[in-house]
């Protein structure tokens, strides 16, 4: 249980750090894999590191209330920067490190950051290149010195140097318990962090969360899943995302568990395997990618291995979830499952690094029921939750033993939920945000005076399970010209459950019928092409291949069939589709930083294609501008084919698809 919850005077993260250093000083707090070896820091060591950094920042002029931007991938020193800033009364503002210069400059200006603590040369370059537009920034501090030796160091400082300054100050100016006193000045109602949400439209909004809301949310979550100091998590999602902030920082400080920083973004799976994480959190995309990789690898495996894999997988599909849910299962099935664990499930879980996982969550978007069931059938306790930055994550979560592929669970502890007549979900909890930074107007739009927050999502409570179900963004549920209900995301998700389809964009609001633009999944379709001797020179060529069209047409037809069986959805079947000639990319603004499609933007950007879909054209020419990672621009042109589809008559009796 969350022992710390008892002591109400421990209400900020620096205070939790002091508690952890005192009560579990020798336990590992954070690890990082560097030069092939896991380096570990105990809570006691972290306290020293944070203290040195905090006093160093103080010496550089950080005052109570100052904002400190933190930009980079998940590294121990960047997490320490967060706590160091908080300990002297500053407010950390983590920024998405892959944001293009424009986006970053907006956040840094809007937050009025005084100091930017960044990971490496790449980020230093980005910040320095915009320095004339960022007068508020007095210093840029970097963690990784490579390539920065010859830079002008008047405003630039190496993090180790800052800590050296801090250590010196700790011996003179701030000797004794001066730092601890600074920490004691902080209180629960202070702003703990500002997290900018990328949103689907307009500029990012700075969500202000108080210590109280983050701490209480974390305590509740730790209690809900019985998390202890013994958990191991791996930190690999953007630090600027509320999910990572809660899982890899807040909950860790509150429970005292260990956070592991991977060696590089490409080694996460291997690193996770080495660590054996016990508590995992990932957006559906991560689970999808793992499964796609497995399936591709299995297609390439020998016949015997493949046969064995599929046999046991089918067995698991039938019995695995029942065994996990502790339902009665015949002995024979249990035995075969046990054999499967030995031969297939165990090695598979080991490959994913999920062998020791007690609780794994997926959130952020709907997960494909097939994907969801796959992991559960292997015996991984994968659950869904529904959260938002404005709620310090938790709104609903699935309790153990009450898992459904198509719900997001019951209200989390201390959370109240109500559904508006328009279908919009409203929530109220201690975790609710204080407001949008420098934007009282937007705050008032979203948060009512009595504390209810509009989620912007449409949903309903399933009378059978009592769980919340989310259909779509409230504003995105539209209607066709003939008044048929059109939920684009619902259709897109159905399409995206096919491994060959990476992204889908459905159009239809105020139109006569539904059409979709698809993105192929290069790994999956590429591997299919290799097996079937389909020759292609580029992504564009593969996407336009007639046999790829044929294959995706089959998928679309299946989706139409399933829509036809779903009563009100039957009228929203897909009449025409096309395959986009380029991958949708966050750098081009087509996806948000959390990889959600920006439907409106895409419809506009690919205007000629959208027109073609409704004009009856067989082919459309298009030229698109695209942005490279360094900010340069180029163009790509293509001739895109459009395929017509047959629709299915609505089925008389809707079939229940759930197993």
């Amino acid at each position: 249980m969350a022992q710390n919850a008892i002591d109400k005077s421990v209400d900020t993260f620096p205070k939790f750090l002091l508690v952890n250093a005192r009560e579990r000083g020798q336990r590992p707090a954070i690890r990082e894999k560097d030069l092939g070896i896991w380096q570990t820091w105990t809570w006691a060591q972290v306290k020293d590191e944070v203290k040195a950094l905090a006093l160093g920042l103080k010496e550089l002029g950080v005052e109570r209330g100052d904002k400190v931007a933190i930009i980079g991938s998940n590294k121990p020193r960047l997490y320490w920067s967060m706590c160091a800033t908080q300990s002297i009364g500053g407010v950390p503002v983590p920024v998405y490190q892959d944001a293009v210069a424009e986006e970053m400059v907006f956040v840094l200006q809007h937050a009025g950051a005084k100091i930017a603590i960044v990971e490496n040369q790449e980020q230093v370059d980005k910040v320095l290149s915009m320095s004339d537009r960022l007068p508020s920034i007095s210093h840029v501090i970097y963690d990784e010195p490579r390539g920065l030796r010859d830079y002008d160091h008047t405003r630039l400082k190496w993090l180790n140097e800052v800590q050296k300054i801090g250590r010196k100050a700790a011996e003179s100016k701030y000797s004794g318990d001066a730092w601890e006193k600074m920490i004691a000045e902080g209180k629960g109602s202070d702003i703990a962090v500002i997290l900018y949400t990328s949103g689907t439209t307009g500029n990012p909004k700075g969500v202000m969360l108080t210590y109280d809301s983050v701490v209480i949310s974390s305590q509740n979550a730790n209690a809900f899943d019985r998390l202890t100091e013994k958990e191991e998590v791996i930190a690999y999602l953007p630090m600027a995302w509320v999910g990572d902030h809660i899982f890899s920082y807040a909950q860790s400080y509150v429970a005292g568990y260990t956070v592991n920083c991977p060696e590089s973004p490409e080694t996460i799976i291997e690193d996770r395997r080495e660590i054996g994480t016990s508590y995992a959190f990932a957006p559906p995309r991560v689970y999808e990618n793992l499964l796609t990789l497995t399936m591709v690898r299995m297609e390439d495996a020998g016949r015997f291995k493949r046969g064995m894999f599929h046999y046991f997988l089918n067995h698991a599909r039938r019995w695995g979830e029942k065994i996990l849910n502790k339902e009665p299962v015949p002995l024979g099935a249990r035995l075969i499952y046990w054999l499967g664990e030995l031969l297939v499930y165990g090695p598979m879980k080991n490959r994913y690094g999920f062998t020791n996982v007690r609780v794994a969550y997926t959130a952020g978007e709907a997960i494909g029921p097939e994907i969801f069931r796959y992991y559960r059938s292997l015996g991984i306790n994968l659950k869904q939750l529904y959260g938002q930055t404005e709620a310090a994550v938790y709104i609903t979560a699935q309790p153990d033993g009450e898992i459904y592929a198509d719900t997001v669970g019951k209200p989390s502890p201390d959370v109240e939920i109500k559904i508006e007549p328009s279908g919009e979900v409203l929530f109220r909890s201690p975790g609710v945000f204080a407001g949008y930074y420098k934007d009282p107007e937007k705050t008032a739009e979203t948060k009512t005076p009595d504390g209810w927050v509009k989620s912007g999502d449409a949903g309903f409570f399933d009378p059978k399970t009592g769980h919340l179900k989310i259909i779509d963004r409230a504003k995105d549920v539209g209607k066709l010209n003939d008044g048929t209900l059109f939920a684009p995301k619902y259709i897109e998700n159905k399409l995206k459950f096919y491994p060959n389809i990476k992204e889908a964009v459905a159009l239809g609001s105020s139109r006569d019928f539904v059409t979709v633009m698809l993105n192929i999944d290069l790994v999956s379709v590429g591997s299919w092409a290799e097996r079937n001797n389909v020759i292609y020179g580029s992504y564009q060529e593969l996407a336009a291949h007639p046999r790829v069209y044929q294959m995706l047409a089959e998928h679309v037809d299946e989706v139409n069939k399933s829509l036809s069986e779903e009563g009100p959805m039957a009228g929203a079947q897909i009449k025409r589709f096309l395959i986009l000639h380029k991958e949708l990319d966050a750098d081009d603004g087509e996806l948000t930083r959390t990889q959600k499609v920006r439907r409106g933007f895409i419809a506009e950007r690919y205007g000629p294609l959208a027109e073609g879909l409704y004009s009856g054209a067989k082919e459309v020419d298009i030229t698109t501008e695209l942005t490279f990672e360094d900010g340069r621009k180029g163009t790509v042109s293509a001739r895109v084919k459009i395929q017509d589809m047959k629709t299915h008559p609505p089925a008389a009796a809707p079939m229940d698809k759930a197993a």
Partner: protein
Amino acid sequence: MRAPDETTIKAGQTLLSVQNVSLSFGGVKAIRDVSFDIKKGEIRAIIGPNGAGKTSMLNVINGFYHPQEGEITFKGVKRKKMRPHDAATGGIARTFQNVALFRSMTTLDNIMAGRTLRMNKNFFWQLLRYGPAEREEIEHRRKVEEIIDFLEIQHIRRVPVGRLPYGLQKRVELGRALAMEPELLLLDEPMAGMNLEEKEDMCRYVIDVNNHYGTTIALIEHDMGVVMDLANRVVVLDYGQKIADGTPDEVKSNQAVIDAYLGVAH
């Protein structure tokens, strides 16, 4: 251990010079009377149209080919010809145009192989892999891990290089050359066959190697943009002869070079 340096060369002084070198295969003259020098600490590019003798020149420098005429002076020592082993022990490392890796070995083992000359040659200890040899192995491993970190190839540490995509193979090959801690690094078309992003990465690594380790680099490259960005000085070969030598700007405006690239008849 490497041969003791006969003289210590300071930055800006001549590290290697090629004097009046001619090389022919049977009746074909690959290089005709070419002379140029490479100064310590610079990035020197060798460019020219296809078949100009660029790769042959690199092969002469690292001892794969033995010129019929001319001399090579490396670190003040004059030689009629270089042997590959002399070149390697003297501190010359290289990569190849079409990637020459140990395909069945992992990335880690490939880069470790680059440490060969830095390793103690005591056969007995190596056989036992015990005591001092084990300590030494760990020391070398550390060095290799630094290179892996530098080139950001942690994720392929344990993958046999034959399975890697081409761009990554090129990076591993650079890693193996770096593991030798060379004084002179010869790169034979390091960006060939790469996409734009990989090219940019490779450029950054080349610059970083030059800055960070102070390694002198001689590279052959087709992409003129890359050459102009990277190189301090450029030597231009055409039909085995040197037609220009100087800074990128000088070379760019040289009439002979323009003719060679535009294919004016000789």
